[in-house]
């Protein structure tokens, strides 16, 4: 293989990688925010709210991300939702991730000791204050490992955005491969690159996890 293709297509690949990271971060942040909203609504909503949200969770978790993207990007315009590839991709990632994040938050909230919440009520905190000062800080810390884990899974989902022509790293690799007939080399390099990337972020994730939960580790 001629390595000069990487210098020629380097800037494109780099731009693609940057977009991959942006999609991943925004997808994680928006997805987690929506998931948090769903988890809180499920906790405090009435029976019908809980039922509607549970149906939403099952619908999204039961269908492939690719089909959801096609529905959004190609089906959306038929009901007046016309989006460019990137916004469609980001919205897709947000929707796709939200039920998984919601389940993570829900189980984290369940793990908050009821005594803490009762204590909050006993000293006269409002429900909002209990959510803000007890449920979220305690719950988020215990949700952290699962959150990091799922956000790493999301990095791998971002390559699917290339299919609806979002110019992220996979799309750019495909472009390079098609222009230079280096399909195997291109995709294999991308595979190695992704492997390294996922390894790095999971290490960083573990470090972050240790740092944030260090108050929970008993000193010896």
């Amino acid at each position, binding site marked *: 293989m001629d390595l000069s293709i990487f210098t020629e297509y380097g800037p494109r690949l780099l731009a693609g990688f940057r977009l991959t990271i942006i999609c991943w971060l925004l997808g994680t942040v928006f997805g987690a925010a929506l998931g948090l909203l769903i988890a809180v609504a499920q906790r405090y909503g009435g029976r019908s709210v809980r039922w509607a949200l549970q149906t939403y969770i099952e619908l999204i978790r039961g*269908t492939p991300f690719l089909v959801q993207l096609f*529905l959004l990007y190609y089906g959306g315009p*038929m009901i007046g939702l016309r989006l460019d590839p990137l916004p469609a991709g980001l919205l897709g990632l947000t929707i796709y991730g939200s039920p998984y994040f919601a389940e993570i938050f829900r189980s984290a909230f369940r793990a908050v000791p009821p005594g803490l919440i009762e204590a909050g009520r006993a000293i006269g905190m409002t429900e909002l204050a209990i959510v803000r000062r007890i449920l979220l800080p305690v719950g988020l810390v215990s949700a952290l490992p699962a959150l990091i884990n799922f956000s790493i899974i999301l990095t791998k989902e971002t390559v699917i955005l290339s299919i609806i022509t979002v110019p992220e790293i996979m799309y750019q690799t495909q472009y390079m491969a098609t222009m230079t007939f280096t399909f195997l080399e291109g995709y*294999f390099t991308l595979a190695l690159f992704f492997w390294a990337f996922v390894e790095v972020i999971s290490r960083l994730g573990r470090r972050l996890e240790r740092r944030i939960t260090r108050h929970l580790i008993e000193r010896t």
Partner: protein
Amino acid sequence: MFSLSSFLDAFWPLTMAARYTLLVSGLGIALGLVIGAFVCVLALSKSRVWRTVAAVWVSYLRGVPMLVQLLVVFFLLPVIGIDVPAIVGAVVTTAIVASAYISEIWRGAIMALPKGQTEAAIAIGMRPRDSWTRIILPQAVALSIPQLINELILLVKASSLVSVVGVMEITRASQAQAGVTFRPLEAYLAAACLYLAINLCLAALGRWLEHRMAV
């Protein structure tokens, strides 16, 4: 506007295509169970070399997006002189990717068994092989059933990606349907319904198995 008749019309071709979705994910998990068992044996081996091989295998397959792996296999096979239909490459990729997750599921299940089980088997004079086949494995398999069903559901969803290499499964068929009728909303909605139906059935099967295997 949404057209109910073209939504309903999409179901017949998509149901036909669902055979390939089931074939890819079903064969994928079956072969994945076999390869996964080997990887699991390596991961639990006493030799450091084998453990490293297993760790690299699992880490690579879990670190690289399935779509990228699919294209690597798809373009690799002709280069090494294997000329097979796209569906074979799709099944192979699915099985290899699944093997990484399955080996971890089994390793977890085996490690989760209390040490006392092996000790008791040795104490009553079982040979190591018998303690594995009669004590450890039956329990580990029962323990891992819910996670294996979960893995199968993930594979059904992941099989939508093999549409990219041209396998006529549900997603590819829905693209074709959308192209013919110019009604993407209905076609993809029908595809989503089919996936949902398959996965709900699998989830129900999982609950039933879990209930049956419960000790």
